[in-house]
C-alpha cells in the first residue's frame, strides 16, 4: 500500500477546506417567526412567490380539470415536495434558479390560460416534478439543523392547504365567466413568468 506523506495530506486538506469555505451566494434560508420551525416553514412558503405561484397555478390547473385531478395534485405535490426537501437537506445550499422558476410560471400559467386538457397521469407527473424540484431547492436552503425537516413539514402543510382551497374553489366553478377568470389568472401567471425570465437573463 502506497504511503501518503503528511505534507501532501495537509496540502489536500487545505485545498478541501478552501473549497468548503468557497460558498455560493445564498438568499434562501428561513426567516424566524419566533414560533418554531413549523411556522418558519409555513411562512417561508407563503412569502416566497417563486414557490407559492407555481403551486397556485398547479392547483388552478387541477381544479379546472375536475375533482379527480384536484385530489391527485393535493396528495402528490406535498408528498413529492417533502421527499425533495429531504433529499435537499443534505446537499450544498443553493437557490432555485430564477430561470427555472420562470419556466414553471410559463408552463403552468400557459396550461391554465389555454385550459389544457391534461390526462390524470400528466397532472400527477407535473405535480411530482414540481414538488421534487422546488422541494429539493427549498431543502438545500434550510440548513442541516434537526429542525429543518420539521420546517419542511410545516412548509408542506401550507402547500396542502393552498392546493386544497384553490383546487376546491375552481372545481366547483360552473359559470362560464368564472372559469374564464381562472384562465385570465393563468395568463397573468404566464406573463409574470415571461417577465421574470427577462429579468433573470438581464441579471445574468
Amino acid at each position, binding site marked *: 500500500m502506497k504511503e501518503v*506523506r503528511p*505534507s*501532501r495530506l*495537509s*496540502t489536500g486538506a*487545505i*485545498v478541501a*477546506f*478552501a*473549497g468548503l*469555505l*468557497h*460558498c*455560493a*451566494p*445564498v*438568499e*434562501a*434560508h428561513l*426567516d*424566524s417567526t419566533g414560533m418554531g420551525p413549523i411556522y418558519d416553514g409555513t411562512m417561508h412558503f407563503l412569502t416566497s*412567490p*417563486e414557490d407559492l*405561484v407555481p403551486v397556485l397555478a398547479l392547483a388552478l390547473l387541477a381544479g379546472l380539470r375536475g375533482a379527480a385531478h384536484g385530489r391527485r395534485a393535493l396528495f402528490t405535490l406535498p408528498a413529492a415536495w417533502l421527499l425533495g426537501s429531504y433529499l435537499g437537506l443534505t446537499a450544498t445550499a443553493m437557490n432555485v434558479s*430564477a430561470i427555472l*422558476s420562470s419556466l414553471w410560471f410559463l408552463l403552468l400559467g400557459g396550461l391554465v*390560460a389555454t385550459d389544457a386538457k391534461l390526462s390524470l397521469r400528466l397532472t400527477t407527473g407535473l405535480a411530482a416534478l414540481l414538488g421534487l424540484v422546488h422541494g429539493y431547492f427549498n431543502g438545500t436552503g434550510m440548513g442541516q439543523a434537526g429542525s429543518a425537516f420539521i420546517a419542511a413539514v410545516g412548509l408542506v402543510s401550507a402547500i396542502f392547504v393552498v392546493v386544497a382551497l384553490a383546487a376546491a374553489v375552481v372545481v366547483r366553478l360552473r359559470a362560464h*365567466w368564472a372559469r*374564464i377568470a381562472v*384562465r*385570465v389568472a393563468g*395568463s*397573468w401567471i*404566464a*406573463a*409574470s*413568468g*415571461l*417577465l*421574470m*425570465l*427577462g*429579468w*433573470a*437573463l*438581464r*441579471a445574468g
Partner: protein
Amino acid sequence: MRGDDTRQAIALAVLLAFVLLTAPAMAHEQQGQAAGFVTGLLHPVSGLDHVLAMVAVGLWGAQLGAPAMWALPVAFPLVMAMGGMLGFLGVPVPGIEVGIAASGIVLGAMVMFEVRPPLIVAAVLVGIFAIFHGHAHGTELPPAQSGLLYSMGFVIATGCLHAVGIGIGTVHRWTWGRRLLRAAGAIVAGGGVVFMWKALA
C-alpha cells in the same frame, strides 16, 4: 522539502483567494420585495396614458362580446410581457411614447365608432400596442427591487384596468349605454391625441 513548501504555499494562496472571493450571503431578509410589488402595481395606474388604453381594451372587448371580451384580456398580458421582457433586457423599441399615445387614439376610435373587426385582427391590433406598454413598464423597473414582484404587480394592475373597462362595458346592452360607451371612446381617443402631441413636441 522545498517542493512540499511550494505546494503548501500554493494551497494557502488558493484558500486565501477562495475566502476573499466568497460571494455575500444574503440570508434571512430580502430587501425591496414589498416595494417592488407596490411599485409595479402603481406603475400602470400612475400614468393616464396607460390607464386610458387599458380601460379602452376592456371597453372594446365588452362591445365586441364573447369570445373577444375574454380573449383580449387573456392575450394582452402575455404580449405585454414580451414587451416588458424586451425592456428588461434593454432591447430598444423605437417610438415607445408615440406607440402608447397611438394606442389611446386607435383603441378609443375603435370604441367610439364601434368597429367590429374579426377577432384575430382585434387581437393583433391590441397585441401590437401591448408591446409598447410592456416595454415602458419593463424599462422603468427601479433598482434594488424585486423584478418578479414588480412584474406581478404591473400585470395584476393591467388586468384590473381591463376588468374595469369590461365592467363599464356591460352597459352596452342598453341604448343609452351604447351611447355612453361611444362617448367614453371619444374621451380615450381625445386623451390619446393629447399624449401624441406631447410625445411629438
